[in-house]
């Protein structure tokens, strides 16, 4: 469980366009790392390179190294599917599978991969995952109803349950609360705080209060100018970033004077 990720000199391209340049950072296990920064600076793009989702875009590629416990995720013989087995992801918009029930959505990671499991074990796994996602009490009586009938906040928690059901080592979250109301947001923030006991969590957020509330480490991404590549400006403990950042751009951003 919970692994350390080291990124070394990562350049991220869309075809010939260099989107993010020279990111080096260490993501500590059993902690929450928040990535903040203005729109278009490459936070989400960077996040998607961590589980090799970036290359799903045609002609997208990266240069540099991403090490998970000293193994390069972009090494020659690394299977991207295997990488995603260890690094799960929660998306900005909740995306439960519309053809599946709540139960099947949680079990999707196993069922879609044809993993055979005893009914009882699968039941336990679904219940455990839904409990971890703070959704069990709300849906335990309607596990066979379609997942897309839940509210937005419930759907997002369902997606989190789906992601943790396959027991990943790292959980990536791309603005998981941006489409949710404050109450659902709080439920998910509480959940993130609980989950960091077991997982390494990286979260992209536009909400700086949220970054302050839930993260241990914060990275500030920025781009020099329109058309220039984005990059990591500063990475430090969340307290330091929000009270006494080393970089003046970071300070201007966290104090709300730009971006």
């Amino acid at each position, binding site marked *: 469980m919970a692994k350390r990720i080291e990124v070394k000199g990562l350049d991220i391209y869309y075809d010939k366009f260099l989107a993010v340049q020279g990111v080096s950072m260490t993501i500590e296990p059993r902690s929450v790392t928040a990535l903040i920064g203005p729109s278009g600076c490459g936070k989400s793009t960077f996040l998607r390179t961590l589980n090799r989702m970036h290359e799903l875009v045609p002609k997208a590629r990266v240069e540099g190294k991403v090490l998970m416990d000293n193994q390069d995720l972009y090494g020659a013989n690394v299977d991207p599917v295997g990488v*995603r087995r260890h690094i799960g992801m929660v998306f900005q918009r909740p995306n439960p599978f*519309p053809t599946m029930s709540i139960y099947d959505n949680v079990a999707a990671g196993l*069922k*879609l*991969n044809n993993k055979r499991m005893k009914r009882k074990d699968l039941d336990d796994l679904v219940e455990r995952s839904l409990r971890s996602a703070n959704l069990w009490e709300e849906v335990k009586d309607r596990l066979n109803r379609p997942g*897309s009938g*839940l509210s937005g906040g419930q759907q997002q928690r369902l997606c989190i349950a789906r992601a943790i059901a396959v027991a990943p080592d790292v959980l990536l979250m791309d603005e998981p609360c941006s489409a949710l109301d404050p109450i659902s947001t709080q439920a998910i923030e509480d959940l993130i705080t609980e989950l960091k006991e077991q997982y390494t969590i990286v979260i992209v957020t536009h909400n700086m209060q949220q970054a302050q509330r839930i993260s241990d480490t914060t990275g500030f991404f920025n781009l020099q100018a329109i058309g220039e590549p984005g990059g990591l400006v500063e990475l430090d403990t969340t307290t330091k970033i929000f009270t006494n950042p080393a970089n003046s751009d970071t300070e201007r951003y966290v104090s709300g004077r730009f971006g």
Partner: protein
Amino acid sequence: MSTPTTSLDKGDRNDKGRAREEAAALLADMPLTHGSLPRRAAPLTLLAFVLAGIAAWQTGLLGAAFAGILTAVGYTAVIYLWARRVEGPRGAFDRLVTAVVSSAFALALLPLISVITTVVSNGAARFDADFFNNSMLGVVDEGGGAHHALMGTLIITGIAALMSVPVGLMTAIYLIEYGRGRLARWITFFVDVMTGIPSIVAGLFVYALFELFYGPGIRMGFMGSVALSVLMIPVVIRSAEEMLKLVPNELREASYALAVPKWRTILKVVLPTALAGIATGVTLAIARVIGETAPLLITVGITRGDNFDPFNERMATLSVFSYNQYAYAPGHARDLFYERAWSAALTLILIVMTLNLLARLIAKLFAPKTRA
């Protein structure tokens, strides 16, 4: 403040200010209420014109078509002028467009209703058990039926569907999920071209193809299936492609993020999500080719008796049967032959209607559920 630019700016601003004042004045003049026609004015006027039209037609004053046109035009003119007096120009224009749109709708519906009533009234005479239990073997005038043709149609169209659906579906999957660049563009282009191929060309092509192997005069049911496939595949590709495009990319990404390989994602996430639409598209593609006549006439021919072996000799099909009964009706029993032709046409329409209902049912059963 004396530079020309500022004065120009100022003038511009003054113009804008004046325009705003004028707009405000216009709005102030516009009343919040206006008159309106009595509640039943429109339907009653329409009723009056329809009755007048029917009367004119029945008394022989005007032909049916002319009476219909006059009814529509008369109603439109009267309701427009009346509304213009009472409701003002905007209300009147609303009435006018409503009348025009409704007339167009009625016009479009007319041939459809006419076709159905004609086929039903002419086809009902021989739409009986005999018709479905007998072939034309040994029949010279009375009796006889289309048992052989119905089975032939089902067999030939069934084989065509069995060949077209996998090919079409897999092509669509290639185009949407894998195909990039020049090859995919060319395939799309040729699919578009194939959609427009006249059915007779498909028939001739298949005949020429089979003639190479079997010699001239070759006819069998399977050739008809191949010809129908040529017509059906592009339709299946097109509809499946549209349905696969509708599957949100987020679902694919959700699946990838769960470490599901691409082929499994397509098989277990993308296809089930699009299944309802694909099934509807396939059913409609079958409905599209089941009534084809020209290619079957060339490749399959017609028989008088049962032949259910698609790889051996001629077979009968409903469309060709219908044509054949009409074209080769002998003088002494013309009406009996025409009745059978109409009954075959009615059977075809009923099959197509059933397929359409089936498509709706399938769409309903397989559609992704949203209610919790």
